[in-house]
């Protein structure tokens, strides 16, 4: 089934709130092999000026993908998850994510089109804190591989 190009331009209501825990940050840091003490040790994070342990630079993907699930998990969007490979990813950090943050994410479908038998889906998630201040902009392009 081809992707549904009509979804291009959609903006979703805010997803979340997501409460970021120390355990999540530590597990993510361990999984990607992040080496910094500030990902795991509160006093090391405080020495850098943060209230609590600070997330690795790609941690926001954990929250962004929960926002993207509104699109990817929608049968009408035509995205076959098992045929999805990741094309591109960009993070713009307005500030780092620390344990204790309560964040919401607004999903935007920036582009959705067929190209060379594959579906190309570009999304943007704007993560913001509980007072609406921007935290991270996550841009992602996924490729839904064609059957051919």
């Amino acid at each position, binding site marked *: 089934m081809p992707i549904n190009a009509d979804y291009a331009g959609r903006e979703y209501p805010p997803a979340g709130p997501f409460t970021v825990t120390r355990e*999540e940050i530590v*597990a*993510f840091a*361990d*999984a*990607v*092999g*992040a*080496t*910094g*003490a*500030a*990902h795991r040790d509160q006093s*090391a994070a405080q020495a*850098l*000026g*943060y209230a609590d342990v*600070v*997330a*690795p*630079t*790609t*941690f926001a*993907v*954990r929250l962004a*993908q*929960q926002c993207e699930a509104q699109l990817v998990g929608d049968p009408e969007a035509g995205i076959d*998850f*098992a*045929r*999805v*490979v*990741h*094309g*591109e*990813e*960009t*993070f*713009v*950090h307005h*500030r*780092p994510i620390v344990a204790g943050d309560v964040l919401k994410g607004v999903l935007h479908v920036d582009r959705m089109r067929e190209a060379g038998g594959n579906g190309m889906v570009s999304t943007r998630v704007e993560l913001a804190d509980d007072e609406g201040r921007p935290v991270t902009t996550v*841009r992602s392009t996924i490729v839904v*591989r064609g059957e051919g």
Partner: protein
Amino acid sequence: MSAPAADSAALVRTVTVDRARLVAYADASGDQNPIHQDADVARSVGLPDIIAHGMWTMGAALDVVTAYVGGDPGRVLSCQTRFTGMVVVPEGETVEVRVEGTVTKRDEDADTETIAITATCGEDKVLGRCQAVVRV
């Protein structure tokens, strides 16, 4: 407060991945796509075997940038990549990804540097146009 000096030795590293690490990453990231955990599913959609999450590779590679700026993620202002190759992770094997960063631009006014990253697995370049902008 002056920032710690950037450490260019931190920009070269070999990272390793096996299937247990992919399960850990799936749990930590929430990305439970079966192509990263189930070889039958991966093959059924035309992949050679289980492949690492592209975001695992990006996360592992980008840590050299955080290390370069004194282990402070707050000095990594942005980062981006294209996923140009697959890291295939066969049963029972530990696969190496070679990561190398180079400072390609220095903006004295903004006090930032741009770091280009290469990540290769065997002969394959697995990340393309991978770069980060850091506050020096």
